[in-house]
């Protein structure tokens, strides 16, 4: 039953995504792939769309996947599921457990979760990049794609240069827009 699957899948995402938007991406990818809802390719596109539209990225992705698999009802259920853990936990903390945040054991658990999630996020980004460069789109066989390798190195160099040289953070939307235009030139009209 797709509605129940969407609910449980996104409940899991909402419950384990410590540290905001990017923390959710690995879990959403995992859930969506394990149910076979969408291809890895499509997930990347949805990340880009979610980054370029207003609102929390996690909520945007849940809405999109829900709509794709179950129409209005599906997207409402997925969205609700992804925000439910955050909503309930904050209420509980405000009503009853404010002291928990000062508890040393709880702090120790968080101290382990934070670095782990950072590693998980980095691995997800690195694997996506690896996949773009070395795996063929549909079959996932090993096949280096020279055009994409050069393109990735170029884009990453520009990104690092701008960040290091101007010492400013680059807006993800601007970076996505630039890469879209560059993509049209590299991969053709």
């Amino acid at each position, binding site marked *: 039953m797709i509605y129940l699957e969407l609910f449980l899948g996104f409940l899991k995402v909402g419950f384990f995504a*410590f540290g905001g938007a990017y923390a959710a991406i690995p879990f959403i990818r995992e859930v969506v792939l394990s149910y076979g809802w969408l291809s890895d390719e499509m997930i990347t596109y949805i990340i880009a769309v979610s980054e370029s539209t207003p609102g929390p990225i996690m909520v945007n992705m849940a809405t999109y996947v829900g709509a794709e698999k179950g129409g209005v009802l599906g997207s409402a259920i997925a969205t609700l599921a992804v925000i439910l853990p*955050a909503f309930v*936990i904050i209420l509980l903390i405000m009503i009853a457990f404010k002291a928990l*945040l000062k508890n040393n054991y709880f702090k*120790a658990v968080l101290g382990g979760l934070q670095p*782990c999630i950072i590693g998980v996020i980095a691995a997800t980004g*690195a694997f*996506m990049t690896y996949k773009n460069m070395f795996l063929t789109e549909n079959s996932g066989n090993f096949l280096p794609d020279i055009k994409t390798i050069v393109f990735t190195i170029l884009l990453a160099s520009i990104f690092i240069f701008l960040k290091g040289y101007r010492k400013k953070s680059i807006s993800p939307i601007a*970076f996505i827009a630039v890469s879209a235009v560059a*993509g049209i030139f590299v991969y053709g009209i």
Partner: protein
Amino acid sequence: MNLLIELFLTFFKIGLFTFGGGYAMISIIEHTCVEEKKWLTDEEMLNMTVIAESTPGPIAINCSTYVGFNQKGFIGALISTIGMILPSFIIIFIISMFLDNFLEITFVASAFKGIKVAVGILIVDAALKMFKKIKKTTLSIFLTLAAFISLFIIDVFAFNISSIVLMIAAAIISLAVYIIGKAGKSGAGK
């Protein structure tokens, strides 16, 4: 103006105009809720940020629930959170109806191929940014690297292991290190 309507409209506006998720949102919420509306003091804002970062889920939702509950209890929390997600829900739903067809146009597909490369870079960059912010101890550096290497290997070889397993393991290791450290200290003190 009725406080509930004000909460709804305020968070609707925040939801509509904040691009880029979590951290971008915190600065806008700070501006609106502390400076403009005076719903929170500076200290409360800081507390809320800590709570939002230490709990799972979208940071924006943590914040809207916190502020709403602070102002008007459960119903305030509910109305604020609904206000927060409604704009993006409507926008994304409309986009989802068109994206599939849109991708069949060749130049759009090329553009998205370019975007795909950018997304990978942005995700790695987000992780690096977060890494800069955490306290660097032997344990935290070890856990970051261990999680990175494990998940990358899991992905490359398509092993069927969830990253949730890695998170539970990291939590247990960190808790164990804390407990052992504490026992060691009290033992040395005797």
